[in-house]
C-alpha cells in the first residue's frame, strides 16, 4: 500500500515536449498529446521522477487535496492463485518487495492475479516504485513472467525483462563460482525446497 500525498504538475507554455517525463513515469500517468504531457492525477503515484528528470526545470510536485491510498488488498484476489504464483516465482509472500512503501510480495502477486498486464499497471495498482523506483522492479517483473505475461520490453527503455533469481543459477555457473553461496542461500531462504527455476530462464 502506498499513501500518495503529492502529484506532479508542470508549466505548459515553456514545455519543449521532450517526452523525458513520460519515459521515466513508472505508472503510465503521463501521456504525450500534441507534444505536451497530460498527467492523469489518478494514476500519478507521486514518485517525483518526472520533476527531477525535466531538463527545463518546469515541473513540480504539489500536495494533493487529500492523500491517495493506492493498494490491492491481498484478500481481494483468490488466495490460492496468489500463493501459487508466488511459489512459482520463488518469492516469499511476506517479504517487502517495495521497501519504500513496505508493499509485500503478496500484494504485488495479488495485483497480477487481478489482471495487471505489465509493470506499469502493477505500479498504478499498488503504488510500488513510488519511492526509489529501483529495487522492487525485478520481483514484480518475475511475478509477471511467472503469470505468463508478455515480457517484450516497451519502447524507450522503460524497463528490460530482467528476472533472474537465486533459483535460476545453472549448474555450470555453480561450478564456475563455487564460493558464491548459491546452495547455502537456497537452503536458507527455501528450507522446504519448494522453489524452482522459472522455465523461461532455464539455460
Amino acid at each position, binding site marked *: 500500500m502506498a499513501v500518495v500525498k503529492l502529484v506532479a504538475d508542470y508549466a505548459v507554455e515553456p514545455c519543449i515536449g521532450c517526452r523525458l517525463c513520460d519515459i521515466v513515469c513508472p505508472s503510465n500517468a503521463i501521456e504525450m498529446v500534441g507534444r505536451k504531457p497530460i498527467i492523469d492525477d489518478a494514476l500519478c503515484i507521486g514518485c517525483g521522477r518526472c520533476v527531477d528528470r525535466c531538463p527545463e526545470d518546469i515541473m513540480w510536485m504539489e500536495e494533493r487535496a487529500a492523500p491517495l491510498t493506492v493498494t490491492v488488498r491481498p484478500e481481494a484476489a483468490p488466495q490460492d492463485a496468489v500463493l501459487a504464483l508466488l511459489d512459482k516465482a520463488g518469492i516469499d509472500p511476506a517479504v517487502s*518487495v517495495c521497501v519504500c512503501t513496505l508493499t509485500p510480495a503478496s500484494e504485488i502477486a495479488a495485483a497480477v492475479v487481478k489482471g495487471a498486464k505489465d509493470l506499469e499497471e502493477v505500479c498504478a495498482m499498488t503504488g510500488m516504485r513510488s*519511492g526509489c523506483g*529501483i529495487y522492487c522492479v525485478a520481483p514484480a517483473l518475475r511475478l509477471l513472467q511467472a503469470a505468463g505475461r508478455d515480457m517484450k520490453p516497451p519502447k524507450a527503455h522503460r524497463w*528490460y525483462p*530482467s528476472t533472474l533469481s537465486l533459483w535460476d543459477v545453472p549448474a555450470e*555457473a555453480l561450478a564456475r563460482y563455487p*564460493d558464491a553461496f548459491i546452495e*547455502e542461500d537456497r537452503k536458507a531462504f527455501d528450507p522446504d525446497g519448494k522453489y524452482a527455476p522459472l522455465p523461461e530462464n532455464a539455460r
Partner: protein
Amino acid sequence: MTASAALLPPAFMPSDYGPGLRPHVGEQLSSMISVPLTDLFPRFEPAITAGDPADLDRVRAETRKSLANVDMSKIGPGDSVNILASEHGFGLMGGWPYAEMVKTIREVVIERTGCRKVSLRLAIYRGFREADEVAEHFGFEEAFEGSVHGLGPFDPGVEVDTAIGPMYLIKRAFDGSKFIHAYYDDPREMYFNRLLYKSFKSFCMSYARYETRSVYHSLFGNRSGSIIPRALFDSDFIQQRYAFSSVLRTTPMGVIGIDATTDLYAIDRRITKGHLETYGRMQRLFAKIEDCVAIWDGGRWGYYLHGGGLIFGTLLTSHSDAFDLDKPVVAGFMQVPGAPINFSRHKALRGIVVNQAWVGAGIPYVTMPFTSPMYIVGEEQAKLWREDPTNPLLMDRATVVDSLEQGIAMACEKGKTDKLIVFDGSYGHITCNRSMADLLMARAPEVEREVADTLLPKWMAQRGLA
C-alpha cells in the same frame, strides 16, 4: 586519550538534493571532541590523506606510481576509452582524493598509450542532476576537455549475456572501445555486500540498469548476490572492453594508496584482507555501543555519511557481525522464512538528529522514525523531507526542532542516553562527546583481542584468505 576539540571534516559538495550548508556539529558545540582512531587501535597505519586538500599531490603521486606498473597494451592510439567513475567516491573525504585519482588516470593513459579519446563516464545513483553537480564541483569538464557524461540507472541499456543469464548494463558506460574501472574501496554497505568480491560491485550497480540492481538486491541473498557482478565482469562483453582497474585504497584512517592492475581479482583479495583487519575492528567496536544518539552532519544521504571511516548504516546494523558468512542475512530484502530482520531497527540507536544531510532522494527510511526517533533541525530541511517522494510518511513521525542543541536534548531525554556520535564525513578520528569517547576507549582493547584472536581468522578462512 589524545582527543582534541572537534576537528572539522572535509568540506562537502553543495547539492540540489540537500539543504543549504549549515555549520558543522563541531563548530556549534564546544563539548564535541575528536578521538583519534589510533587511540582506539594503535595498530592502524597512518594514511596519506584524510581529505585535506593540501594532500592531493600525494594522491596524484601514488596514482602515477601505481599506474607505472600497469599493462596498458590493450589501449591503442586509435581507441576511445571511457574512465568509469562511481558517485559514492565523491562522498569520501570531500571527494577530492577520488577526483584526483580519476584525473591522473586520464593524464597517464594519454602519456603512455598515445590515445587522446579518453572520456569520463560519471555513474550516479538516481538523481538526474547528480552527475552535472559532480562534474562542475570537481572541475571534470575542464580536466576532460568537455568529454564528460553522466550515467544513471534509468538510461538506455544493453543486454549482456553472462554465465547466469542475461543482464542489463548502461549502454553509454560502454560506448567506447575500452574502459577503465576507476573505483574506490570504501566497504560502505558491508551489511549487504558482506565483503564478498566488493571490488566488482559496480558492475551490477553503478554501471547497470535498475533491473539488474534490483536482481542483485532483491532476488539473491547478501552472500549469493556476489555472483552477479562477477558474472558480469567475466562476460565476453566486458572482457572485450576492459583495460584495467585503478582503486583508491582506504582504511578508516583515510586514503592509504592506489592499487592499479589488470587483475581485479588480485586487487579484491588485497582489499578484502585489509578491510577485515581495519574496518572489521571498527565495525565490532560499533557493536559495543549499547545506547547512543547519532547525528547526521554531511553532504550525502544519511545512511552513507562517514564517522571514523564507517558509514552510518554500519552503526545501524552493528547488531550483527556483517563479516560472518555463516549468517545468511544481516540486512537485506530476501529473508529467512519466519525470521525477518528489520535492518532499520537497532535498539542501541536511541535517536537520530539531522543537522544536515540529503533527503531520501531514492533512499528509503520508511521504518526508521518508527524505531529510532528522528529530529530534523530547522524548517528548511523539514520542508525538503516533506516533499521527498521516497519517504512520504517520514515527517508524520519525525520531529522538527529549532536548533541542534534542542534536537540533541530531546533525543537524549527520550532515548535515555548521554552518548553522541557524529557522522560528519570524518576519517582518522571519530567526532563524539566525552561520554561516547570514554565508552569507545574502554571497549577498544576487548575488541582488539576479540578480532585478532577469534574473528579475523574466521572471517579470513570463510573467504579463502587464511
